[in-house]
């Protein structure tokens, strides 16, 4: 039986006709009670379970997922990993995630295909260049790798950009993060699931949380489509559905749900080996390891739970793409899809206690939580294990909306989520 992945195990299984691989994670029946329940089998939920077992020695844990693990936004995103944020609080958070990503394949014994191919945020005017310089300064002061790119630097990393003199969005330079890149989204979910399962965590798929068990003013468990499960510690990481579950728990959140869409082209030969974002064009783009051009843009215009995305936004994204890369005009789009993301007024996540005691939140990642999965998991695990914030999660508590200590990354780093 082969459990660990290595060159030797690959070789042995090759000889044995690939018949000895064990199932990557168990699929047990739900038990009546656990030390902790995690709602949502996306990256954040699975990572939380893994770090609960690994960092806190709590492994009587269930991850309860209504569909299949990674079937939410974790399996629908455009896989960009970076930590080029503005505020020190954000840098602590996304910096932690970025560092953990760099060691993740080794830690999980699962190849998450982190590819640090670098990312450039383009500047299209003198004014944007000034903001770019300010952003780069802030990042460097906070200890994040960042460089201000000249037009020649941009040409070096993205020669196929539209540099013609009559380009509608000429390049004045850009903000470069060399450690940024992409990771394989499914592998992140599967890697955490496999590692958590091996530490004793029960991963329960096709099991929807329909209600909370509330006794004596505290959350004491959940009702599911497969019966009641009790626990004194419940964590929730359901992305676009946070408000739906909050309503069942009796409170509201500072969240609106929107569809965010993406699309990929047919696979083509290697032509773009970095991630390029243009705020002016409203588009970011990279090439997958399979050769597809992966295209993302802004949120849809109306609050929505319809997991499909709408045409006017897609048209804007494609128009922007062709401004950037006229050469892509010949590409055929293969697929388009959307995920439901949870958008918070200050574009920062919510990590902390909920208004219902025993229930803890990890939500509000909006359009950018894939890169944060290792940190979101670490911090929710810490909250569930200790009942308290640590220094990194404290600023992201729900109470910031009453105290006014918002961490406005839309204003800070121009991140539109």
């Amino acid at each position, binding site marked *: 039986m082969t459990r660990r992945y290595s060159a030797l195990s690959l070789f042995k299984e090759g000889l044995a006709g690939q018949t000895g691989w064990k199932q990557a994670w168990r699929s047990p029946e739900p038990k009546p009670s656990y030390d902790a329940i995690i709602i949502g089998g996306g990256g954040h939920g699975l990572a939380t379970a893994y770090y609960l077992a690994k960092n806190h020695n709590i492994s009587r844990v269930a991850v309860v997922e209504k569909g299949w693990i990674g079937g939410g936004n974790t399996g629908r995103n455009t896989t960009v990993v970076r930590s080029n944020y503005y505020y020190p609080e954000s840098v602590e958070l996304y910096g932690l995630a970025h560092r953990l990503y760099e060691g993740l394949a080794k830690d999980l014994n699962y190849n998450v295909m982190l590819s640090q191919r670098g990312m450039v945020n383009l500047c299209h005017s003198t004014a944007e260049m000034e903001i770019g310089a300010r952003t780069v300064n802030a990042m460097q002061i906070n200890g994040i790798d960042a460089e201000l790119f000249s037009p020649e630097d941009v040409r070096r990393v993205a020669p196929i950009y539209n540099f013609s003199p009559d380009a509608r969005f000429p390049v004045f330079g850009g903000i470069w993060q060399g450690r940024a890149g992409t990771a394989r989204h499914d592998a992140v979910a599967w890697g955490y699931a496999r590692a958590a399962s091996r530490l004793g965590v029960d991963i329960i798929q096709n099991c929807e949380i329909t209600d909370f068990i509330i006794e004596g003013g505290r959350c004491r468990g959940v009702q599911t489509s497969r019966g009641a499960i009790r626990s004194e510690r419940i964590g929730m990481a359901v992305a676009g559905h946070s*408000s*739906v579950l909050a309503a069942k728990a009796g409170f*509201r959140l*500072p969240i609106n*749900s929107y569809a965010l869409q993406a699309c990929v082209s047919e696979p083509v030969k290697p032509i773009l080996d970095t991630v390029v974002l243009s705020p002016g064009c409203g588009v970011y783009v990279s090439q997958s390891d399979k050769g597809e051009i992966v295209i993302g843009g802004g949120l849809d215009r109306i609050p929505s739970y*319809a997991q499909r995305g*709408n045409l006017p936004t897609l048209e804007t994204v494609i128009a922007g793409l062709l401004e950037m890369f006229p050469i892509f005009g010949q590409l055929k789009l293969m697929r388009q899809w959307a995920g439901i993301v949870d958008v918070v*007024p200050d574009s920062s996540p919510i990590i902390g206690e909920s208004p219902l005691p025993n229930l803890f939140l990890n939500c509000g990642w909006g359009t950018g939580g894939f890169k944060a999965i290792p940190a979101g998991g670490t911090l929710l695990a810490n909250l569930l294990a200790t009942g308290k914030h640590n220094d990194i999660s404290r600023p992201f508590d729900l109470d910031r*909306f*009453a105290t006014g200590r918002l961490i406005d990354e839309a204003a800070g780093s121009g991140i539109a989520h």
Partner: protein
Amino acid sequence: MQLFPCPFCGPRDETEFHYGGDAGNARPEGADVPIERWAGYLYLRSNPKGTAREIWVHMNCGEFFVMERDTVTHKVLSSTALGGEHAA
């Protein structure tokens, strides 16, 4: 492309409209409003999956109105001028 009904101009292209928040989210009045109430007014949202009552503005005519809409199917259930709201 979806058409939204402006109570003043009739059915128009969805891109002409801007979402303005939950209907019935009244601004707190008075000097001694607790901060939780302010935070609720400013930031908390119902964000229902299903039928939602929302404020929208038709950017072309500038009128605000209440639209009832299903957030899963995007089907519009009703559209009323803000003044008519109280009468209904």
